[in-house]
């Protein structure tokens, strides 16, 4: 039995009144792929940031190869041999791949020598990276490779990976696993943070589970089931979405006809010939890896960017492609944006003022075009808080003071409260705890069963399979045909995510 590479003992980290880590202990062996599991907000990122020196623990000790260490900053962590791949990458869009990597390396500044090293290491590990490419022009997968290479060039003994596959297609994830297994075989330990239980069970040989800042289990994930792991993470059985009635396809309520839209800005995606229809009574989901045009498609459907031609978008048979967002809302459409703070809600405004944000045009009681009636907004806010169990500190707090899950329940509730005929939601449960996510999914199913058309854009395949009646996949601004959920497998969707349908769309383009 060898000694642990890293031993974290009784770490406590307090933010104000919140105990983010409460006596957390963790031991990682050399060459081990160690899973670190927990819900959003369980305290995983906090601990990992302390190991990487980006945060300092309130109390507790860390041992590296048996020696007590105090890691004051990331440079010290890197000097010890700890590398980290961040969930939201720590990359610089305006700089080249080589410059990005140089920023994490000590020693002389020689970009051309570094570029040669990058090329050779990237060949060695099968992680293709072009050193002089500007990172802003690269795909998410390519960016992750740069992050990984940045760690590999420092010959790490411990590699921390924070939710690495959440932005990858299943096939890209498989490629990553090959690299990780090889690193482990070479003796490098990997601390693998994820909430995807399937991949943890196949990849990791040890796991530590965190709940509300405390370690609740240490186990071998290969001997568990996804259900048993989930139970330990959440602490209770997660409610399953119940369908009150089977889907009955009514009339087509939302129709996109060969919708195209030029890219808006340097790092944006152009939409190409997107056709889709959503009928009353069904939920259609759009799957895809982040950054493949989901935001652009949402903007095109909501009217935040207007289209070239009215007939590109039909709402209950009415051509509205050139209408603005409020004209569309008046026709019974409702929208929930991906970014809660700063898009769907104004962080610094209280909830009642945030009611006005999306309701001032469609709700005559709240605003009449000139005046605002805050008392009416207040009443509507109270209704939503009650119906959707929005938990908050005081009567009318600023939006930013709510937790992610509660704010999401509020912004979705704000639209459901209008009983919309067509609801378009981008990432309905992103960053939301399991309980709130289940409630939100249930609400979406319920709305569709009342005859509304619901379109869900999501990166979460579990969620999509749970609620969608039909599924389409978006990749580089092109959308595959929507197919019934029962006829699709994860593998098939993975291939579509990687762009297998794009050729076909290209041909359509020629025919048109």
């Amino acid at each position, binding site marked *: 039995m060898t000694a642990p590479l890293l031993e974290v003992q009784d770490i406590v980290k307090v933010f104000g009144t919140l105990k983010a880590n409460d006596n957390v202990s963790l031991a990682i062996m050399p060459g081990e792929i160690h899973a670190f599991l927990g819900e959003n907000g369980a305290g995983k990122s906090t601990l990992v940031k302390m190991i990487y020196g980006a945060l300092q623990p309130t109390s507790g000790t860390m041992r590296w190869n048996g020696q007590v260490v105090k890691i004051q900053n990331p440079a010290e962590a890197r000097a010890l041999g700890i590398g980290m791949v961040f969930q939201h990458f720590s990359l610089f869009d305006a700089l080249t791949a080589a410059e990005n990597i140089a920023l994490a390396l000590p020693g002389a500044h020689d970009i051309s020598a570094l570029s040669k090293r990058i090329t050779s290491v990237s060949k060695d590990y099968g992680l293709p990276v072009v050193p002089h490419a500007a990172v802003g022009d690269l795909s998410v997968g390519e960016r992750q490779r740069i992050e990984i290479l940045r760690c590999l060039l420092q010959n790490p003994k411990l590699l921390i990976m924070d939710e690495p596959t959440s932005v990858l297609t299943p096939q890209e994830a498989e490629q990553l696993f090959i690299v990780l297994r090889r690193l482990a075989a070479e003796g490098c330990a990997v601390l693998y943070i994820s909430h995807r239980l399937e991949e943890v069970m196949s990849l990791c040989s040890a796991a530590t589970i965190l709940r509300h800042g405390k370690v609740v289990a240490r186990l071998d994930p290969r001997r568990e089931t996804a259900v048993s792991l989930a139970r330990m993470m959440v602490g209770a059985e997660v409610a399953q979405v119940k369908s009150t009635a089977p889907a009955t396809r009514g009339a087509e309520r939302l129709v996109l006809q060969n919708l195209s839209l030029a890219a808006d800005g340097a790092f944006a995606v152009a939409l190409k010939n997107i056709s889709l229809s959503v009928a009353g009574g069904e939920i259609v989901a759009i799957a895809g890896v982040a950054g493949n045009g989901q935001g652009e498609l949402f903007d095109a459907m909501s009217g935040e960017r207007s289209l070239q031609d009215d007939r590109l978008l039909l709402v209950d048979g009415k051509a509205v492609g050139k209408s603005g967002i409020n004209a569309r809302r008046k026709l019974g459409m409702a929208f929930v944006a991906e970014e809660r703070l700063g898009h769907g809600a104004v962080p610094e405004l209280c909830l009642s*003022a945030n009611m006005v944000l999306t309701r001032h045009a469609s709700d005559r009681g709240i605003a009449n075009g000139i005046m605002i009636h805050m008392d009416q907004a207040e009443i509507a806010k109270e209704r939503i808080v009650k119906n959707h169990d929005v938990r908050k500190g005081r009567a009318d707090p600023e939006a930013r003071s709510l937790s992610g899950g509660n704010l999401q329940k509020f912004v979705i509730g704000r639209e459901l409260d209008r009983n919309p005929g067509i609801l378009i939601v981008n990432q309905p449960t992103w960053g939301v705890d399991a309980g709130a996510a289940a409630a939100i999914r249930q609400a979406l199913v319920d709305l569709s069963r009342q005859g509304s058309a619901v379109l869900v854009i999501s990166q979460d395949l579990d969620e999509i399979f749970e609620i969608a009646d039909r599924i389409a996949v978006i990749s580089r601004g092109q959308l595959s045909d929507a197919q019934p959920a029962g006829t699709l497998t994860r593998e098939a969707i993975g291939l579509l995510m990687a762009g297998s349908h794009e050729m076909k769309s290209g041909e359509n383009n020629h025919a048109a």
Partner: protein
Amino acid sequence: MRLEKRAERSAAMALASPVIALGLTVITAAIIFALRGISPLNGLYVYFIEPLTALWSVEQLLVKATPLVLIGAGLAVAYRANVWNIGAEGQLTAGAIMAGMIPVMLPNWQSPLTLILMLLLGSIGGMLWGSISAFLKNRFNANEILTSLMLVYVVQLLLDWLVRGPWRDPKGFNFPKSITFTDWQLLPYITSGIHLGVIIALVMALVLGFVMTRTLKGFEITVAGLSPRAARFSGFSKQGTVMFCFLLSGGLAGLAGAIEISSVVGQLQPQISPGYGFAAIIVAFLGRLNPVGAILAGLLLALSYIGGEAVQTALQVPEKITRVIQGVLLFYVLACDTLIAYRIAGLPSATEKRA
């Protein structure tokens, strides 16, 4: 010292911050007086208190505050929307030129309409001058801070040319001045020292305060400033907001220009404002970017002008101290504003104690 973000903005600090800033400014002023060998208490008295003890100087204070309140209230709205119009001085000048056109071109036209038209043209002049920056921002993405400021120099040179050239008073002994305005080319006086402009400024600021808190337009401006993306989601046009803010703040600055030449100045001359357009930037911030707050802040800044004149005559301190005190005041306001959104780590917070 480390700062921690508060979960919510502190309402108490929002009120306290300008007061703290003012206190620090007074202390700084005392130090400046002491450095010049003047008794600080005497200096402070002459600067800040004495002007408030005589009726005539209070009236003068109100008159001086008029352009500051008008412009400051408009700038407060623009800054709320993150539209950085810093060329109000130029818009004031443009308003003065447009308004001055009437008495200069039609010196004998005397009717109440004369005055109304002057005020109207003044506002339009300010709007036009402001709208240039808005147009350049919307159409070419040109930074409005720089364009609005450059346009100050341009319009001041235009005024300079007018009063030295075509609009010069032929009987004015070659001084660079237009004819002096008379009767209905001037604002009526309510008391011996207060003209109608004082009322106009007060009403305008109150109306703007109402617009900001109760109307959809005010909501649009608030949202546009806090979160542009959410403003778009709410269906507000960014370009529309930019144009509105420049038209509003420019229009009010132009109106202030018209009021100045039809009251205190009484004619066109190369310099018609001692930098009101720039001082109004301080008014806007000191008033918490709130048009009603601009009333109090405008009065305070007016006091700083009058106090500066007072210390010059009474204590032989150059009135340039005015601009130093104004600049220092803005610094303190900005520094104290930090305490609204942040708190100093380690100190117990009021909200925590309550909880």
